[in-house]
């Protein structure tokens, strides 16, 4: 099942911030992690991650640094900033409210609990 475009767009920021909360990372690894976490369901074209990262950087949620990878290639690493952490907490509160509402609206057997799990990621 593909997740709709608007929901992907809305989820992108908390998901990326959440992954960076696990530790600093770089673009390709972040995408890998998203694929891994969502079992390939939450996806967008690879390139789009970078403008998003740049926006988060401009807003001060993440910090970036160019470093050499083990293979000797330059790579831009991103790290969650203190402000980013509080933004993430904020997103998390908002998403759990939305998730809670959806849970009540859709009284739950197994399949309907899926959104909650996905939202819980944030």
């Amino acid at each position, binding site marked *: 099942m593909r997740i709709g475009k608007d929901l992907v767009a809305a989820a992108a920021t908390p998901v990326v911030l959440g992954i960076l909360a696990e530790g600093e990372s770089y673009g390709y690894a972040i995408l890998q992690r998203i694929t891994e976490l969502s079992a390939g369901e939450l996806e967008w*074209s*690879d390139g789009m991650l*970078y*403008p998003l990262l*740049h926006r988060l950087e401009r807003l001060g949620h993440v910090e970036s640094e160019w470093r050499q990878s083990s293979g000797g290639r330059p*790579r*831009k690493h991103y790290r969650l900033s203190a402000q980013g952490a509080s933004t993430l907490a904020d997103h998390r509160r908002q998403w759990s409210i939305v998730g809670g509402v959806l849970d009540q609206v859709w009284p739950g057997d197994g399949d309907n609990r899926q959104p909650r799990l996905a939202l819980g990621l944030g």
Partner: protein
Amino acid sequence: MTTEDAPHLDELIASWRDWIERRDALSIRDVDELESHLRDRVDALSAAGLTDDEAFLIAVKRLGSMDELSREYAAEHSGRLWKQLVLHDSSDSEGTDASDGTMPFVRRANGLTIALLLGVGAGIAVKATELLTGDPELVFRNIAVLVLPFLAAWFAWRRRPPIGTLLGVAATFALVALALNLYPFDGGSSTVTVATQNSATAVLATIGSIVALWLVTGIVDAGGAWRSDRTRMDFLRFSGEWLVYYVLIAIVGGALSGLTVAVFASIQVDIAPFIVEWVLPCGAAGAVLVSAWLVGAKQRVIENIAPVLTKVFTPLFTLMMLALIVASVMQWNLVGGSRELLIAFDLVLVVVVALLVYAISARDPALAPGWFDRLQVLMLVAALVVDVIVLVAMIARTGEFGFSANKTASLGLNLILLANLAWATWLQIGFVRRRVPFGRVESWQTAYLPVYLAWAAILVFAFPPMFDFA
């Protein structure tokens, strides 16, 4: 196999980079990041058993549509679509870059340091001369000799012309300086007049010196290749852009000065004299260099503005002249016009030549003649008709009143411009009718530059003695 394929992948990525880098919204660093991503993806895919070019194709595909991606980048970095002045060097507009560290200080930002130093030098030259001689009139008369050497020095630094060219230009500057200062102009320093010249020939010589030395400075800009049509046209482009920037700086500078005076006046401090005596002359001289630097720095960053102004004003100016023809035919007024009529028409012709030259300077020679070229024919014909009417009238009157320096100078300029425009009209008509290649239209204007130089030289060297320094 991987060793065989590795250069192949590098080639693929290099050509991909070439294609991506053309997009304004992406900086080089962004492309680096995307490349790093691409290589990671390719590595993962080849590890899964794909060949490099297959992996490359998939990796590129997964990046998504470049149009959408660059729109995203543009939304995030909207400033990049407005090309910014390269205060950093061309390499990168963000953060530190390896090439920055190795670049000599003075070469950074297109030599802004040098331009500023020369600008300060020009300001000091003007001010020091005034303080040493205590004679504003002298400064005014020598303004080209005082300021333009700094512009020539700037060009010399940028272009490294052959030493012979530099010596020739320096000699010309010296000659003009000698003529301007050794000729016994009437009403020289003995008469007390503020900043205005009493002698008409002195004014003419001043104007002549500005034009002549500007063109001579262009020889330095051409880096010795001043015979080439290309470099001459480049200098014309430079002149147009320079004028636009200079006017902009003057307007903003004037507004800022006014604001400063007003603010200080509100606390009962009168700094107007300081502004007039120091900021104005130093700023005006320094702005010559700053404008020159701006033209160089912005050359590849923004579209030339002079051709744009040309496109806007050619139709309006044509309309104005057509109206003038109608009005003069109905009233036959031009004949009885005032003394300044000829000078006014010199200006009209200068504007027409400028409109023509800057339209040419921006035109793609390969394009077929279009409506704008036809409009130019109309403008040229209108200018010729108007000017012939004026000229006939003025020659009749000059016959009555004799030749003064002013009249002769403006008559000479008028004839020079008329000759230029007449032949330019002929060429333009030929071009519109596809009989004449565009190159000839262009080279006629560049080939005509020495004529202006010659006339300016005559104003400086020959006119004062011819008219008894009156």
